[in-house]
């Protein structure tokens, strides 16, 4: 059996174990892949990430819902823990994202889903958590030279804080270098446009596609 064919089988097992929400099986598969000399970067991309993309697809098709997607991501992260220490230092990153729930809101299930899909998609993610003041988004974007700020809220009362972030970015002369994307229950593409954001995504899977488009790695 050629080494390529062998690698393919490890990728498939990693991907399947993620889709099937089996954390133990993902751990075993990741360790087995390492022991067999499979390239860890490819094992992540074509194994774990591939599994998460399939899970994301099942989510869009309404086969999987939030509990299932969270279980898949637990399996994915477990595999990532094993493989990551073996990555070569200069592995390619899709870009840096600063993410958080805007000030006044603590609903972070949606934001966490988007974070998981970003990490799966090879983005470096700086998660500011929930109830985040507008200035903190701007400071974090500056300090990390972020490519993207991604914000969410579930409450109509807090939507305006998103516009404040766009304004503060402008005042800090950072607007041209940072793409802004927004999402959450009450947010619409029209609202995104009104506050001067670069885009709106309806769910976590869409968010990653949009991010890739915005930073030109699609």
């Amino acid at each position, binding site marked *: 059996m050629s080494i390529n064919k062998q690698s393919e089988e490890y990728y498939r097992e990693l991907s399947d174990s993620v889709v099937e929400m089996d954390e133990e099986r993902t751990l075993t598969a990741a360790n087995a892949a390492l022991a067999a000399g499979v390239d860890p970067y490819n094992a992540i991309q074509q194994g774990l990430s591939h599994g998460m993309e399939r899970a994301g697809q099942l989510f869009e098709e309404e086969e999987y819902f*939030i*509990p299932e997607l969270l279980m898949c991501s637990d399996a994915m992260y477990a595999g990532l823990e094993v493989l990551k220490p073996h990555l070569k230092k200069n592995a390619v990153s899709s870009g840096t994202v600063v993410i958080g729930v805007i000030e006044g*809101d603590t609903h972070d299930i949606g934001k966490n889903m988007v974070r998981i899909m970003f990490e799966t998609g090879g983005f470096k993610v700086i998660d500011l958590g929930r109830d985040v003041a507008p200035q903190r988004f701007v400071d974090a974007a500056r300090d990390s030279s972020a490519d993207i700020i991604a914000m969410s809220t579930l409450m109509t009362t807090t939507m305006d804080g998103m516009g404040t972030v766009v304004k503060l970015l402008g005042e800090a002369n950072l607007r041209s270098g940072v793409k802004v994307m927004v999402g959450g229950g009450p947010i619409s593409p029209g609202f995104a446009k009104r506050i001067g954001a670069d885009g709106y995504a309806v769910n976590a899977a869409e968010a990653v596609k949009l991010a890739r488009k915005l930073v030109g790695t699609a």
Partner: protein
Amino acid sequence: MSQLSPKERLLNTLAKKRVDRPPVICTGGMMNSAIVDVMTKTGHTLPEAHFEAGRMADLAAGIHAETGFENIGIPFCMTVEAEVLGSDIDFGSLACEPKITREQFRSVKDVVYKNFATMLDSGRIREVAGAALQLSRRYPDQPVIGSLTGPVSTAASLVEPMQFLKELRKEREQTHRVLEYVSNFLIAFARTLIDSGATVICIGDPTATGEILGPRMFDEYAVTYLNKVIDGIHATGVPVLVHICGEMKSVKPSIPLLHSDAISTDAFVNLKLLKQEYPQLTTMGNLSTILLESGDPERVARRTEGLLLEGIDIISPACGLSTSTSLDAIRAMTGTVKCEM
């Protein structure tokens, strides 16, 4: 039939008796209308009114008088239950509602089961009940609606929500045990409010949506425990409203399984079609809160007319109102239903 009091009109509607026109209500709790306009006008303000029966009653009375809603609704948050069960609450400000800052447990396996009698005497339970008592005496013709946070949301306010959602699959036995406990507590809380004069109970369960749980988990957990709470309240003879958040597509067939006396939905659910498909449902809703916040009374009135033409049984905002919603917009809604416009 023109002599129907607002209380009779709502109770008759819920009992599927004929009424002169739909009631226009705003339940309190998740869907409260403690807007900044009312608070500045009446001087009864949040966060103070979250804590004390008299202030809570005064604000609820002020809302009723200013908005024209045909009910009184208390409390003004979704944190009364979580506070008593042990989580940390940030009580917010005039314009910002209270929220959970830290859930007490990391896993359903860690939940410590407390005594109901002690819980009913702690936190703000007695204050909400006291407000219900004052209001039911002051307004005998108005329905006093006591609002509860639903069992799934309350459980997800007690156990860290991301973990909780995973444990719906991974720790089913313990999750059922926690939901059983939370549901029994909610029934006890509802009965306390009913003993104090609440006419109707409304349950809002924003974590229990089809979008989050999917149909299988919605049936296994949301339908089971919503019905347990509803049945516990029905045993006292009091009707129950249930609000389902979000897009309902994936769980639509489960909606008629709920034992509630009316179903309230978010703005993007077509209530007219839902009613056509399930004629047995009493529908409630669903005026867009985004439209209400945009503040154009003309458009609010037109959309309200639309809901009336579609035969929606109870006219109500579709979700939690933004505190910056204008009184003019709300009055356009209530006035249109009452034919004052």
